[in-house]
């Protein structure tokens, strides 16, 4: 702790930070532009000037940039000094000389850091009378709008894009006062994290293009804390609605999870909520065989007979449905008749993963832990495409090891350019073993390309080198052995290594190999971080809840004698062979699907009930780490769209079952889970319950300055209606209620007096860049046992052998396209690749295929005609097919396939 003096007042501060950081921390307003807690200080905007004094006798002082001065013990500064105030005022006046007069049509208006800083620095009258500079804008793709006129040259965009996210197609061009931030030519921004430019840019140069389609100001949106539904990472988001449609997703800071940033899939995938393919009304199969809308009463009444006897019902849950809904279904149909809705492979892998994380001497790390790792070994995952935000975290880890040098030289870590000059090209150890090239290859120390069993063999070999108790690998070739030595050496030296693996290749032995490596690395006092990537928002949740896979359901259907099938938010055709699902569905007289999107399974249903997305419902998801996080309903839908468990409650009540009679709100469900499922003992700590109040008030979803309250619905009826109640959460749907700083799990708006932009975040953090006030939200359900019971996995596979007539077919994941939901957003669809089959050069040569040739790929789950893509990074004898793309959803991978022309 150090003591600093600001305008005569004494403050206790952390001397490892800079003055700006510490002043903001203490609630002192200093205007700034280029400083960002995640990206450090560079001192380029000159806005955060303050006066520094030598000692108590110094009355003259000198102007310094507060972001570039350490908060050393005894520092005396003045923020309110007349000269400093005048300096800051003139700096912003210069910045504003060329700023266009377009706030009314600028999407940043009302949440603009430049607006805030202009007011804060006291510039209010324009004296510059000359012509304004203008710039030609660029087309940067369907996600980001570019309006270069508004730029104030703070360099934050390139610092994020190049230095933080390692993108290489956005840069600064030109010289002196002709500086231009953009690409070398028009085109889609290639980096997967480009959407963060919207939040990083302090003004309106980069704005959300998808918001532009239905533009609404920050103050007019109804917002609620949400969890991203597009992969297993569980980033915290803020969903925002106006006029009954979700308008945008903003990042919601969680120090342990996503921090300041989101990936583009998470930020822009929201439009499925507004999609045409949504199910918004109950539907029933009519006598003519068509599925048509019907009233809720009629449908529930018809379901009476189907739901009469529980013994005739089979329930299939889903990894994209909340823990609560899955639990309700499991409770109703019983453990032996409930299936998690995971595919065979996923189910097997997830069970394994949970077992390992609970019992092995390892620990599942949060993204923060991953950012702080100093050695990385990835086994079989293309992390950028399967868990994008984890990839961004991994990108930060390459700095950790070389940062020791920075510390040794006593350079403060926030001094970004000094740090960069010291680091030069130094990178921490980073090893990737994958089937084909990944987007993280640019930062890797070494990469290894092989078929999935061979990847596992490398893992087993590394584990054996680290600890001789781990099984050895037979017949390992020399090169791989050498690589294993290198990897083992680097991991051994590291203080905080992380092993990353996952389910994306559908290979069990990789999961085992990763566990062996991590366990072999663990010491008495330190457990190695082992992170398994899972595909969907609640895969871990259903895994913890437990139950058979879809395959088990299909195989067991004959013995169960069931005639009613309830499916919650799941498209079975994506997870099991089409023919098997077809014959499975034939066993049932009643197929009740509760879902929000139309898909092949809903088309086979006899009754469909409209479930809610993250926009219309509340619930809990468990992420890859085992962190349970609550998401809250964003808006009140026009139609009767409800949580799946509510539909089940209503339908079963109607049918005469009293299981769920007591379930009036979410708290009741959460309470039941809490009591009855051991794995979810802590689930009620994920967020405050619906009885939570501050000063007797519920929390407001709308901002304090929400507009149009008496006019939005006045065209329907001029007499105002009572706003809807929310029994499930401590939120109101209006601006009534508490609108100050809410507890961490309930933060739905980053705003503070004088801070209208997202930079208001500093006011919500306990310490800047640290946890939110009151601790980061979410609760870890999987903590490693004190005493572990682990014996090394010994199922070392044999080396992959290429077959003559068949190819081992692996799924290739794409950030845009592989996710079932985000692809429904038109702009994500635009960015998704077209279906293809990736073939090794050698194999293509043997088969005499050229790039672009149409070939027929025959898998056990079907036959597809796909154009050939040739690559030298995929091993011979293996082919790749993009997972989940429209048209390829029903391809069940991995598996063996044949190709013919």
């Amino acid at each position, binding site marked *: 702790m150090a003591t600093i003096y600001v305008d005569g007042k004494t403050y206790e501060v952390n001397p490892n930070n800079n003055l700006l950081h510490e002043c903001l921390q203490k609630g002192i307003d200093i205007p700034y532009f280029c400083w960002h807690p995640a990206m450090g200080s560079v001192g380029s905007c000159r806005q955060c000037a303050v006066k520094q004094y030598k000692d108590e006798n110094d009355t003259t002082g000198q102007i310094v940039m507060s972001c570039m001065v350490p908060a050393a013990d005894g520092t005396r500064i003045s923020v309110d000094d007349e000269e400093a105030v005048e300096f800051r005022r003139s700096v912003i006046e210069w910045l504003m000389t060329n700023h*266009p*007069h*377009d*706030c*009314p*049509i600028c999407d940043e*208006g*009302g949440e603009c850091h430049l607006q805030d800083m202009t007011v804060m620095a006291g510039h209010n009258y324009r004296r510059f009378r000359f*012509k*304004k*500079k*203008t*710039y*030609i*804008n660029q087309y940067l793709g369907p996600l980001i709008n570019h*309006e270069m*006129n508004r730029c104030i040259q703070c360099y934050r965009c390139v610092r994020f894009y190049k230095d933080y996210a390692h993108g290489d197609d956005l840069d600064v*061009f*030109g*010289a*002196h006062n*002709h*500086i*231009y931030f953009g690409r070398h030519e028009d085109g889609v921004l290639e980096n997967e994290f480009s959407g963060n430019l919207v939040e990083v840019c302090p003004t309106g140069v980069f704005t959300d293009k998808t918001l*532009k389609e*239905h*533009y*609404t*100001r920050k*103050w*007019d949106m109804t917002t609620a804390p949400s969890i991203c539904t597009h992969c297993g990472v569980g980033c915290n988001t803020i969903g925002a609605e*106006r*006029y009954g449609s979700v308008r945008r997703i903003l990042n919601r800071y969680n120090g342990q999870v996503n921090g300041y940033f989101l990936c583009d899939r998470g930020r822009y995938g929201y439009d499925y909520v507004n999609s045409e393919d949504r199910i918004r009304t109950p539907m029933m199969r009519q006598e003519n065989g068509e599925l048509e809308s019907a009233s809720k009463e009629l449908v529930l009444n018809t379901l009476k007979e189907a739901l009469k006897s529980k013994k005739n019902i089979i329930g299939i849950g889903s990894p994209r449905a909340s823990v609560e809904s899955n639990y309700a279904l499991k409770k109703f149909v019983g453990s032996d008749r409930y299936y998690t809705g995971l595919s065979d492979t996923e189910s097997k892998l997830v069970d394994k993963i949970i077992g390992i994380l609970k019992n092995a001497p390892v620990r599942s790390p949060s993204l923060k832990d991953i950012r702080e790792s100093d050695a990385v070994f990835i086994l079989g995952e293309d992390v950028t495409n399967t868990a994008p935000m984890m990839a961004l975290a991994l990108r930060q880890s390459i700095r950790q090891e070389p940062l020791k040098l920075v510390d040794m030289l006593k350079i403060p870590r926030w001094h970004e350019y000094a740090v960069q000059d010291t680091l030069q090209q130094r990178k921490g150890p980073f090893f990737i073993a994958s089937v084909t090239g990944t987007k993280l290859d640019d930062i890797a120390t070494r990469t290894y390309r092989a078929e999935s069993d061979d990847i596992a063999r490398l893992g087993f070999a590394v584990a054996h080198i680290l600890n001789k108790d781990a099984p050895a690998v037979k017949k390992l070739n020399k090169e791989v052995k050498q690589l294993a030595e290198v990897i083992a050496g680097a991991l051994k030296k590291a203080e905080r290594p992380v092993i990353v693996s996952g389910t994306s290749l559908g290979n069990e032995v990789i999961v085992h190999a990763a566990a062996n490596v991590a366990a072999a690395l663990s010491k008495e006092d330190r457990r190695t971080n082992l992170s398994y990537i899972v595909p969907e928002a609640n895969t871990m949740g259903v895994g913890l809840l437990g139950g058979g896979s879809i395959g088990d359901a299909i195989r067991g259907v004959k013995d169960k004698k069931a005639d009613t099938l309830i499916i919650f938010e799941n498209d079975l055709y994506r997870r099991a062979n089409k023919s098997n699902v077809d014959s499975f569905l034939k066993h049932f007289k009643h197929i009740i699907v509760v879902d929000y999107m139309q898909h092949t399974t809903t088309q086979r249903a006899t009754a469909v009930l409209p479930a809610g997305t993250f926009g219309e419902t509340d619930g809990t998801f468990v992420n890859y780490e085992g962190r349970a996080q609550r998401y809250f309903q964003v808006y009140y839908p026009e139609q009767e769209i409800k949580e799946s468990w509510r539909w089940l409650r209503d339908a079963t009540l109607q049918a005469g079952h009293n299981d769920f009679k007591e379930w009036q709100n979410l708290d009741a469900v959460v309470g039941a889970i809490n009591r009855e499922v051991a794995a979810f003992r802590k689930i009620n700590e994920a967020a405050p319950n619906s009885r939570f109040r501050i000063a007797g008030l519920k929390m407001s979803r709308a901002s304090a*300055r*929400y*507009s*149009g*309250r*008496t*006019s*939005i619905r*006045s*065209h329907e*009826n*001029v*007499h105002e209606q009572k706003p809807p109640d929310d029994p499930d959460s401590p939120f109101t749907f209006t601006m009534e209620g508490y609108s100050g700083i809410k507890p961490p799990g309930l933060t739905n708006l980053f705003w503070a007096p004088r801070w209208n932009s997202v930079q208001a975040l500093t006011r919500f953090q306990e310490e800047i860049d640290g946890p939110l006030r009151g601790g980061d939200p979410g609760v870890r359900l999987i903590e490693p046992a004190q005493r572990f019971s682990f014996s090394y996995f010994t199922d070392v596979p044999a080396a992959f052998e290429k077959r003559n007539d068949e190819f081992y077919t692996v799924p290739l994941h794409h950030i845009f396209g592989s996710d079932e939901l985000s692809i429904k957003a038109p702009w994500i669809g635009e960015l998704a690749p077209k279906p293809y089959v990736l073939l090794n050069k050698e194999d293509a040569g043997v088969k005499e295929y050229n790039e672009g040739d149409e070939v027929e790929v025959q898998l056990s789950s079907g036959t597809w005609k796909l154009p050939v893509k040739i690559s030298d990074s995929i091993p011979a004898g293996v082919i790749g097919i993009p997972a989940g793309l429209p048209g390829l959803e029903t391809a069940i991978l991995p598996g063996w396939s044949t190709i013919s022309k």
Partner: protein
Amino acid sequence: MVSLLKSLWYVFLHMFQKRVTVQYPEEKNYLPPRWRGRIVLTRDPDGEERCVACYLCSVACPVDCIALAATEEEDGRRYPDFFRINFSRCIYCGYCEEACPTYAIQLIPDFEMAEYNRQNMVYEKEHLLINGEGKYHGYNFYKYAGLELKNKGKGEGENEAPPVDPKSLMP
């Protein structure tokens, strides 16, 4: 008794005073041009809608009686998709006009808006939009905004320099 007679006397005298009651509606009072009455949406000198759907009027409105939604033409010109004022709530404070950065929304000297049916007090854009500039003549926001539009390239607005060439090294 005396006070009673006094009052009667004053009443009698009042018969000879000048009448202030106006025989409305036959006779109409003078309303100054800046009188705050019915709200209209005006057009710019080129006849295009002035409103750019910035939402400032709706946020300034103390009774929250303005609701609108922004939309865009193909060239990026923003305008309100719908614009609704619930006059049964409006208090004619004029804050919306004050907040409007483009002179689009204006209060005019007209108060004859009474309705038998309250629902008719809800005005949509077609009821609000007039074919003129209203009180403020000659202003066209898009000329000053620096935005590129169908018939206005970068640097062609008022007080704008031609676009910067980032490849030039000349001072």
